[in-house]
């Protein structure tokens, strides 16, 4: 072990090697600092259970289905992560998505607007809703649970009124319906995959370079390469599977390529991860969620932050709504209702976001959403009766969560809580 010591901030530092880095990581894991591992472990366990029970679970077709099925929860959960980071809750996220979905469907179908005008209006609706909720919470001081419970009821009514009391509206716009139904062409699939890998690599290298230039400790180059390699392998394998022919009857209709919704999820994942991790706005969200009083004393505009997270929450819910409507090619008074809200909050929480604020990442929403989607998808394949299905869904959810909880018990035992 060669430990080159440099100076940073007048304090001597030790340059880590690949071995020391891995030892360090392993030490942290053994000490209970598990990060996203347990949720991913839960995902693997679930997939194995379903894969063993039904071999179609591992088919390319089913793999592709997963994305379209989970997208709605993932988008809403991404927005909820922001709200939960502040220790708030948005019970109305489900129906917000429904209302925005209804807006887009009405504009497209009843008013004959085009998608590029209708979609922005729907997204704007989401933003306005979020602003209203945030204002009531931050400025009037009503607890978010009550505000969003009222909104939950209110939007349910708005949806009914918009849809004229119970009818449903079909969307017939090709582009709009393709969003959460169709796939990228094979060549575009590969192009985006390559771009993603190169982008990640560039970000990693530039970070190492800027730290090294300052004389600060950097991650060993080996580790950086391993990270990039890992991501590359993952993405390439996934793309390879998704670009296989997966149509049941290829003669009638060819079905291949990465679902269009995947790059959209990817885009928001990168965007929000960047916002939370690399901007001062994101830092302030964590601060307000961790200790509102400390944040206030540090001069952070707590109220504005609070409003903004509701805006982001409702904005993402509106995207979730668009995806739900696109997938169903229609909107009805139940869009965004039933289990959508609880599944979405569940997705965020299972991924590791705390309901008490200050702890969580956007990737949590994606992993948690994947857990929810896998459960839903797998239960669908098993063919239980309705009652059994509810029961098994509950049990499976509990198993996934137990994996997480038991893995984290070590953490508690070592005092890292």
């Amino acid at each position: 072990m060669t430990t080159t010591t440099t100076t940073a901030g007048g304090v001597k530092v030790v340059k880590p090697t690949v071995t020391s880095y891995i030892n360090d990581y392993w030490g942290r894991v053994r000490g209970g600092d598990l990060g996203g591992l347990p949720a991913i472990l839960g995902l693997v366990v679930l997939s194995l259970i379903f894969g063993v029970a039904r071999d179609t679970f591992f088919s390319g077709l089913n793999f592709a289905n997963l994305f379209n099925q989970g997208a709605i929860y993932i988008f809403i959960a991404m927005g909820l992560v922001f709200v939960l980071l502040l220790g708030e809750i948005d019970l109305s996220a489900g129906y917000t998505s429904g209302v925005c979905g209804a807006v887009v469907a009405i504009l497209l179908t009843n008013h004959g607007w085009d998608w590029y005008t209708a979609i922005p209006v729907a997204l704007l609706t989401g933003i306005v809703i979020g602003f209203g909720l945030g204002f009531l919470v931050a400025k009037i001081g009503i607890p978010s649970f009550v505000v969003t419970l009222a909104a939950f009821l209110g939007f349910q009514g708005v949806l009914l009124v918009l849809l004229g009391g119970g009818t449903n509206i079909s969307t017939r716009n090709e582009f709009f319906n393709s969003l959460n139904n169709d796939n990228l062409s094979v060549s575009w699939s590969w192009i985006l995959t390559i771009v993603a890998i190169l982008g990640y690599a560039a970000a990693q290298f530039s970070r190492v370079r800027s730290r090294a230039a300052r004389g600060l400790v950097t991650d060993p180059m080996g580790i950086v390469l391993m990270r990039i390699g890992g991501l590359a392998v993952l993405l390439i394998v996934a793309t390879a599977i998704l670009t296989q022919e997966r149509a049941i009857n290829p003669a009638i209709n060819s079905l291949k390529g990465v679902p269009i919704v995947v790059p959209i999820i990817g885009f928001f994942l990168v965007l929000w991860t960047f916002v939370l991790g690399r901007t001062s706005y994101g830092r302030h969200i964590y601060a307000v969620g961790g200790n509102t009083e400390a944040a206030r004393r540090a001069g952070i505009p707590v109220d504005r932050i609070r409003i903004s997270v509701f805006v982001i929450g409702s904005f993402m819910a509106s995207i979730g709504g668009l995806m739900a409507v696109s997938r169903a090619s229609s909107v009805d008074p139940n869009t965004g209702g039933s289990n959508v809200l609880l599944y979405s909050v569940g997705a965020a929480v299972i991924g590791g976001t705390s309901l008490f604020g200050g702890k969580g990442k956007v990737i949590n929403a994606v992993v948690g959403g994947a857990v929810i989607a896998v459960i839903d998808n797998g239960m669908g394949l098993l063919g239980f009766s309705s009652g059994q299905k509810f029961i098994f869904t509950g049990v499976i959810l509990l198993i996934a969560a137990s994996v997480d909880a038991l893995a984290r018990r070590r953490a508690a035992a070592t005092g890292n809580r």
Partner: protein
Amino acid sequence: MAATPLLELNGINKAFGPVQVLHDVSLSVYPGEVTALVGDNGAGKSTMVKCISGIYQIDSGTVTFEGNQVAIHAPSDASALGIEVVYQDLALCDNLDVVQNMFLGREKKRGIVLDEPTMEQMAGDALASLSVRTLKSLRQLVASLSGGQRQTVAIAKAVLWNSKVVILDEPTAALGVAQTAQVLELVRRLADNGLGVVLISHNMNDVFAVSDRIAALYLGRMAAQVKTTDVTHSQVVELITGGRSGNIGLPPEKPADFGGDVVDITPGGDK
């Protein structure tokens, strides 16, 4: 000596519901001087600091900064004026690490991206100047720091900025011998650079070692504000515990004035 006060409080009153905590308090902070604010537990020192920094709203009274009357409604107003505070209850975010806490609310950026390397370097420099020896990493979460380490972070956070007034509420309470010496030296250095410094402390040795003036609070009233050179150790202790010493301090106690406050330890039954 110093010409006009940098910061001046006049006739400040503050009550929490029925409990009057500050009565007509006045205080002057001069540039280039360390003003020690002393007083018994619960005298109202921290409350006064929080009134200055905008955490509490004062009920009445005026605050004058650099000759202009100002209204401070929020901590951001205070820091905009150049008032920096180290609070007794340290107000750190447990879920953030040391560097993140030190730059909270005033992050260094390059474009819109946080400039982590710069912040890390500056934080390291500031901590190194405070004799921090046992911190394992600048990226350690504040939740896992020892009491003294937390306090050092809070102090380092306040001195990172070019401010005009620095107020430290019992900054050395949890510090070790070496660190205490460093902090006192820092306090002196800040004043010598022309800043106005307010130091709250229960340790008379520290107070006499660095302060130029001493202000004594007694049961929410300002008992006296005197030059350090004009008083003795025991006089200050008398001011703290009795509100007066010889001919300085509050007028002799009339039972009606303080009676209620002092003795009323179990009013109104339990709720």
